Each structure stands twice: as structure tokens, then as C-alpha cells.
């Protein structure tokens, strides 16, 4: 035990192991993305690369509020890698996806974290923003119809809230009183567009009332606050209280994707948010509250590094998918599409 002479009481109803787990998931998220940056620079990532730097608490803390033993399901966005890891996606799966490997969860068909495992509890997004809110309505509707005590959670960005699909989805969920939590990530930007060009309200949570759903808000860079606010919403959903729109205030510290140099953002703004880095902050909190020792945390860091290194080593030289596998599985019932006539010439 380090400097903190006395341990503060454990927060948010979490055990010490869970507190360390939160740290682990955030660290894993960040380190995995950093590794992906390195691979991207080596042109080993096939497409674009998207970062959640500074938003790890938001993704991890909210996902952690779900109950994996009950079969809760979430639908992540591009900056919610952390939430998928919490639900059981593994680093090697993510690496394989980005590198378009034959053995990636989508067999090289879809990119980055667009992949699913309903058994583990995540339903990957498609690019078209907003749609997943409606799809998660259906997932939550199945819980309601079958009277299962399960909860759905879907993320939505400040930008994506401008889509018609978001509106139709949240309204549908509200009317049906579905067990759904909608996590609105206010990270200041949608690509280059600042939030005031996206909506005329200051806070996204102001939209809750117009749908007749509960609204709540938290500091998205405080993983325990994120956990608590989401947990309240999850509990409400599970107990039949319907939808909650949870706003998490955070900040996108990198560009929209790696290619975006963020020229449209004042340097000081980024620096100010760097000072509020969710991992640094949680690390200090753990130490000063006496919930974890430096050694505990270093052990986690080491574990993360070795897990990622092992995953990279394992998959780096794996092959791309065999070309003709591209034809399988468009329909359940039909055989694979025929080769075009000229291919056989």
C-alpha cells in the first residue's frame, strides 16, 4: 500500500477487483489502439484507423454497467472499442479486423470494430449513423416480448443525433417503454463539425424530455461517474422503467480518423482535455484512495502489453481471406453466387 495512509471506502458498489478491472479495460483499449497506430504506420492496417483517445472511460465505464451474466447487449460506435472489450471481444479479433485477416470475425468482409457476437453481448455497427438505435430497439423489443430481464445499450454521437434514424429509434423505444439505455457521447465534434453546428441545445441530455424518457448526465472522463450513471439507467431499464438518455461529456482528442490532423481545433482545447485524461485521472484516484497500489497497476500494464504483443505476434502474418470466399453467404438458402462467366475463360 502506497502513500494513501487510509483506504477510502470502495465507490459505486464495486469491489476492489472490479476497480482494477476497469483500469485494465481502459488501459487495454488505449494500448491496443496505440499498437494499431504503429501497425497503421507500417501500412499493416488495411483501411482507416479510428481512435478513442480520451474517451476510454466513457466506453468502458458504461459497458461495465451492463450485466454480462444476464445477457445484456450493447451496440458500439467507432469510438467504443473499450465497450466491446468489456463485453468479451478480444484484442486479436480487433487486430484481425483492422488487418482484414481471413480469420477475423467477419472473415475480412467488414472493417475495424464492425463485428458482432450476440452471445458475448455486442452487435457491431454499420457506417450509416443512427440506424443502430432502431436495430437495438428490436433487440430490446425481443427482451420485452419474451419477458427476459435483459437490457440493451446503444451509443450515439453528438453528430449522429441529427439523423432521422436516431429520432425514430428513440421515439419508438420511448413509446414501447423498451429496456434500452441510449448513451449520447458528447465529445465536442462530429468529424470537423463542432457541436453548436449540430444542434442548438447546449447539452444532449436536453433532448430526453422531448421524447418523454429519463435523462441523465455525467463527466465522461470519470470512469466511476460513467459507471454509476449508466448503472442507474440499466437498473431502470431492467426494472421496467423504460428508456434513459445518458449524456457523457467527453472529448475526442484525436482527429476523426488518423488521416485527420485536427487543423480545425485550437491547440489549447486539446491540451486542456489532455489534463483531464481519464486514465491518468483514474490511476491517481486508485492510488490516492488506496484502492490499488502502483505495483497492482504496473502489473496490469504489463499484462496488457504482453497480451497485445502476443496477439500481434499471433496474427500479424496470418493470410488475407481466399478470394473466392467473397461469394459465400449472401443468402441463407442460396448456394454461393456463381463465378462470372468470363472468369472461367
Amino acid at each position: 500500500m502506497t502513500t494513501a495512509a487510509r483506504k477510502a471506502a470502495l465507490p459505486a458498489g464495486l469491489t476492489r477487483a472490479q476497480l482494477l478491472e476497469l483500469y485494465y479495460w481502459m488501459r487495454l483499449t488505449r494500448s491496443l489502439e496505440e499498437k494499431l497506430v504503429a501497425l497503421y504506420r507500417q501500412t499493416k492496417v488495411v483501411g482507416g484507423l479510428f481512435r478513442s483517445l480520451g474517451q476510454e472511460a466513457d466506453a468502458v465505464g458504461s459497458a461495465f454497467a451492463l450485466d454480462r451474466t444476464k445477457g445484456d447487449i450493447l451496440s458500439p460506435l467507432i469510438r467504443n472499442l473499450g465497450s466491446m472489450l468489456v463485453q468479451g471481444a478480444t484484442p486479436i479479433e480487433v487486430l484481425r479486423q483492422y488487418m482484414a485477416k481471413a480469420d477475423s470475425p467477419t472473415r475480412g468482409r467488414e472493417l475495424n470494430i464492425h463485428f458482432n457476437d450476440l452471445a458475448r453481448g455486442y452487435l457491431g455497427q454499420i457506417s450509416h449513423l443512427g440506424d443502430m438505435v432502431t436495430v437495438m430497439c428490436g433487440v430490446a423489443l425481443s427482451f420485452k416480448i419474451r419477458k427476459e430481464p435483459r437490457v440493451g445499450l446503444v451509443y450515439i454521437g453528438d453528430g449522429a443525433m441529427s439523423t432521422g434514424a436516431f429520432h425514430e429509434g428513440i421515439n419508438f423505444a420511448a413509446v414501447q417503454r423498451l429496456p434500452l439505455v441510449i448513451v449520447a457521447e458528447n465529445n465536442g465534434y462530429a468529424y470537423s463539425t463542432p457541436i453548436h453546428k449540430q444542434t442548438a441545445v447546449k447539452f444532449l441530455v436536453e433532448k430526453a424530455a422531448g421524447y418523454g424518457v429519463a435523462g441523465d448526465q455525467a463527466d465522461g472522463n470519470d470512469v466511476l461517474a460513467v459507471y454509476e450513471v449508466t448503472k442507474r439507467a440499466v437498473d431502470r431499464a431492467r426494472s421496467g422503467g423504460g428508456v434513459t438518455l445518458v449524456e457523457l461529456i467527453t472529448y475526442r482528442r484525436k482527429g476523426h480518423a488518423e488521416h485527420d490532423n485536427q487543423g480545425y481545433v485550437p491547440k489549447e482545447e486539446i491540451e486542456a482535455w489532455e489534463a483531464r485524461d481519464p486514465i491518468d485521472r483514474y490511476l491517481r484516484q486508485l492510488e490516492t484512495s488506496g484502492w490499488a497500489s502502483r505495483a497492482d497497476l504496473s502489473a496490469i500494464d504489463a499484462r496488457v502489453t504482453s497480451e497485445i504483443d502476443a496477439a500481434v505476434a499471433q496474427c500479424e502474418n496470418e493470410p488475407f481471406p481466399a478470394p473466392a470466399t467473397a461469394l459465400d453467404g449472401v443468402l441463407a438458402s442460396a448456394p454461393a453466387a456463381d463465378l462470372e462467366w468470363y472468369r472461367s475463360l
Partner: protein
Amino acid sequence: MTQVTYLEAIRDGLREEMERDDRVFMMGEDIGNYGGAFKVTEGFQARFGAERVIDTPISEVAIVGAAAGAAHMGLRPVCEMQFIDFLSCAYSILTNYVATARYRADLKTPMVVRGPCGGYVRGGPFHSQNPEAAYLHTPGLKIVAPATARDAKGLIKAAIRDDDPVLYFEHKFLYRRIKEDLPDGEDIVTPIGEARLAREGAHLTVVTYSAMVFKALEAAEVLAKEGISLEVLDLRTLLPFDEDAIVASVKKTNRALIVHEDTRTGGIAGEITARINERCFEWLDAPVRRVCAHDVPLPYAPTLEDFVLPQTDDIVKAARWMVAY
């Protein structure tokens, strides 16, 4: 045997599947207490409860999206579009999310989207559409369009049992105009992907579907008196359509006329022509031709609508020309 209308056949098919499989449920605007704009689901909410017959807000994207999510979880949703013209609102989620779900992510998405299509009822440009061409182009979807009461029933049942997303286009002109005797107690299931030979003939193959089947049959009657024998093929499934049946017929008659109610440019007839041309080139004694709606939004006035949409006489004229070629 019981005489049923095309509409009743759809209703019976839906009801039987709801009874057979408790994973089947419905969503749509005004389908509950009201029974739907055309009363297809009349009495369903009373019979199956409000959780299996869900009145939704006016939100076509949410209806389709929620159906997909529920389908992933093992349910079998059937969505009603109040008019199929409003399916366009869900075009993006249908073509991007639903159609690709299996391919990109191994997600099971058994769901049906059905609704009234078609003209000849003075519905104007937004209550008369035939949207098949917009979806024909989407790998991962199936499309069916029944002409007879038997197929209306058989295809809705097949669509619900199918493991892929199926668009089911029911023609509102046929709803109460087509009546057929159907056997009681038979589990009528029309296989998706198989055309039906609506009339055997020797001189010209008419490839068509939905309400146009009856216009083609009328034309065949007229022409029979002139010694011209039309073979009428009712596609029933538009995606994937029964290429083999078309090819077999065209190789027999050596002539093909494609008839659809949809506008000409970019309609499904183009695709069918291409397939015939690819597989029957040596057999063709005349160019493949089309009888379709004119390339305009469908106007409201009877004189205009009748002019724009294909009529029996158009088929008769076109067929005479082709046989004389």
C-alpha cells in the same frame, strides 16, 4: 374448398403462420385495433394480443430497424408498410443494414416487409408505386410479388419461414378483385424462386408478374382467336427470379415479351432481357421487347393513369408485332 379473395389469402397466410410459430409477430402503422389501412390484419390484435401485433409510430426506419434487431434475436417479424410507397423511407436501412447483415456479420435476419403496391386505383404518384427495381439491385434481399390468391397465401407463408429478409409486394388492385377456391386445411407454401406457368403457349413467351399476369392472360385470350398462342410465365419471385424457367420457355417459343407495371427505364425488364440475351441469344427469332409504364411519375387523373400504365391492348399489339417479326 373455400372461396377467398387475394386479400383474405394474405390474411389467412399471416394468421396461420402466427398460429404455427409464436416467434412470428407484426409491426406497422394502424395494424392493431384498426386492422391496417386495407384491413389485412383485421382481428389480429384481438386474437394475438398487442405484443404480437404492434401499432407503431409513423417511423418506417424504426419499424424496419427494430424488425432486424428482433430477427437477430430469433424472432420472425412481419412489418407492414401502410402503402409500399413509404418503404422508400427505409431504403437505406433495408439495403445497407438488413440486406448485408448475413454477409458481413453472419447475422440471421429472417423478416418480412409487406405492403400494398401498384396502380390502376387512381392513387396518384405516392399511393401506386411499384418499387421492385430499387431493391432488385441489392444482394441479400428476396422479393416476391404474388398474382393469385393461392400464391398470395403460399408466398406470405414461405416468406415468413424463409431465413432471409423478404420483401412481399401485394397488389392493391387485386386485393378484392381476385377470388379463388382454396383447399381448407392445406398448408399452402409457394417456393420462393420458382416461376409459375400461368398459360402454356407456343409462339411467344410473356414474362410478367403481379397484376400484369391478368392483363397478359386477357391478351392471350384475344390473340388465341387470331391463332397466336402466348405462353405466360408468372415470375412470382422477382429476386432471385427463376431464370431457368424463363430460358426454358424462350428456347421453346423463341420470342420473349416482358410486361411490367413499373416504369420502363431501369425496371426489372432490363435485367430479364439481359439474362435472356445471355442465355438464349441463338434461340431468339425477334428482339426481346417490353411493355411497361411510361417513364413518368404515375399521375392521378383516370385518363392519364390509364395512358401511362400498360393495358391489355398494349400487350396484344406488342405480341402481334413480335410474332410477326
